[in-house]
């Protein structure tokens, strides 16, 4: 059963990570390709807070979210003049910088050795950790759903659709962008914290660009600007490689097939259902 619990936990974590990515991309129209960097920052922050400073798990995960949010505030302030493809490139560059820091700040991150630790007693078993993470996932889901349905969510939609028109209504679009990226990164950080305790091991390779492909697949499959779509697609995309795992194939082929399956999902969706399953917004 442990296997089942770990897969369920992984679905929950990727649901929060993908929904927070959709919050910036689908709901706000901001292409932040550095999202995985915030996921990684959250994971490292939680790991260091827990292992080095002995901070309780729940606080360590909260710090992870806050830390990712603060760094994102710095990033978006530096990228103030950038939008669209240029913002995407700058945030992608940011991802590589952070990845490089994970690898090279050995004193802090453990470099290529990573950080290994054990979970505290109350979440030691996979089932107890599933319940713990499920509680956090539901809280995050509630909060994000409420945010996108609120008047602030409509301002984000307006920012995505026509920034100039939004400004003509007296709204400071830059501040709205900062808030959108901060909220999105906060939840990516929370997901990162959960992921660190899920694996009990934090390593730079968990936060490389391949993870971006996974969440991009989820968001494109579920649909931009759709909470329901992200939930459904998280299940499908996380379960897909697990199904492949049981195929009668040589182990050396399974890894590439997993990567191929994500690419295939994206291509098929873009060809036959460009708005994804429940998308409200067209891909531009």
């Amino acid at each position, binding site marked *: 059963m442990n296997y089942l619990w770990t897969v369920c936990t992984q679905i929950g974590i990727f649901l929060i990570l993908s929904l927070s990515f959709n919050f910036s991309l689908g709901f706000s129209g901001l292409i932040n390709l550095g999202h995985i960097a915030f996921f990684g920052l959250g994971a490292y922050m939680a790991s260091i807070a827990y292992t080095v400073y002995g901070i309780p798990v729940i606080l360590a995960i909260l710090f992870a979210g806050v830390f990712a949010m603060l760094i994102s505030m710095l990033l978006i302030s530096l990228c103030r003049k950038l939008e669209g493809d240029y913002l995407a490139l700058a945030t992608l560059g940011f991802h590589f910088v952070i990845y490089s820091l994970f690898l090279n700040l050995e004193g802090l991150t453990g470099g290529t050795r990573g950080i290994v630790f054990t979970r505290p007693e109350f979440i030691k078993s996979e089932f107890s950790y599933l319940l713990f993470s499920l509680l956090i996932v539901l809280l995050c889901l509630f909060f994000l759903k*409420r*945010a996108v349905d*609120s*008047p*602030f*969510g*409509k*301002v984000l*939609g*307006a920012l*995505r*659709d*026509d920034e*100039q*028109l*939004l*400004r*003509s*209504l*007296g*709204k*400071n*679009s830059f*501040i*709205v962008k900062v*808030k959108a990226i901060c*909220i999105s990164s906060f939840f990516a950080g929370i997901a990162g914290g959960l992921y660190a305790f899920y694996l009990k091991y934090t390593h730079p390779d968990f936060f490389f660009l391949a993870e971006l492909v996974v969440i991009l697949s989820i968001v494109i499959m579920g649909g931009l*600007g759709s909470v329901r779509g992200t939930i459904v697609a998280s299940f499908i995309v996380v379960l897909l490689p697990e199904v492949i795992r049981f195929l009668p194939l040589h182990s050396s082929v399974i890894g590439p097939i997993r990567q191929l399956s994500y690419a295939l999902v994206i291509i098929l969706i873009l060809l036959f259902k460009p708005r994804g399953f429940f998308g*409200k*917004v067209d891909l531009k």
Partner: protein
Amino acid sequence: MTSSILDIKAIHKSFGGNKALNGISLGIEAKKITAIIGPNGSGKSTLFNILTRVLKQDSGEIFFKGTEISKKEDFQISSEIFSRTFQETRAFGYLSIEDHIKLALAKEDSNFFRSLIKPERFGKKIILDALALVGLEKPLESLGGDISYGQTKLLTLAMAVVKSHEMLFLDEPVAGVAPFLRQQIAKTLQKLRQAGETILLIEHDMNFVVRIADFIVVMDAGEVVAQGSADEIVNDKEVLRCYLGR
């Protein structure tokens, strides 16, 4: 003009080597409809965009009720003083008509926590009244991207009117609009003037301008070449030369 609400002083603007505005000075009177007309490339839209702070002037000053506003950002001006529409039709493609009006009405919706805990609420009546004012008859749930060109013009006019403001800027409000909608917009503007609105508009349609404007400013090659009442303007030889080509 006397008792100006908006004073424009010696505005210069160039794009590369091309002078778009060459020392424009104007006074816009309160509670009147003032129209700026002129041939293509005369600098009307540039002036409009400078007044609403979408563009920055190279030199010159703008005063609203005696306070200099030339250094403010566009959203600050929009938040405090002006409402505007754009020459091209603009709407939030994936938001409903109801959301458009609510966005125009709301003042605190950019405040994330306030929006979650205690959101501003607007009744259906205020939204329906705003749409009725401009004569837009569409279901409230229709998306901005799904309505026609003319209906988008009406929607943005409704948004500009309901948003709190002291002066209304309309950039070609009837360009490309069907004749019956022109009538509708003209009636709406006259109603607004009677209610004490100050309106500045750019328009190519001379008949429309003559019909509704209290004061007309004619621009050509980045300069004001004439200004006066509709009667004065239609008989002005300089205007006939540069604008009507006679």
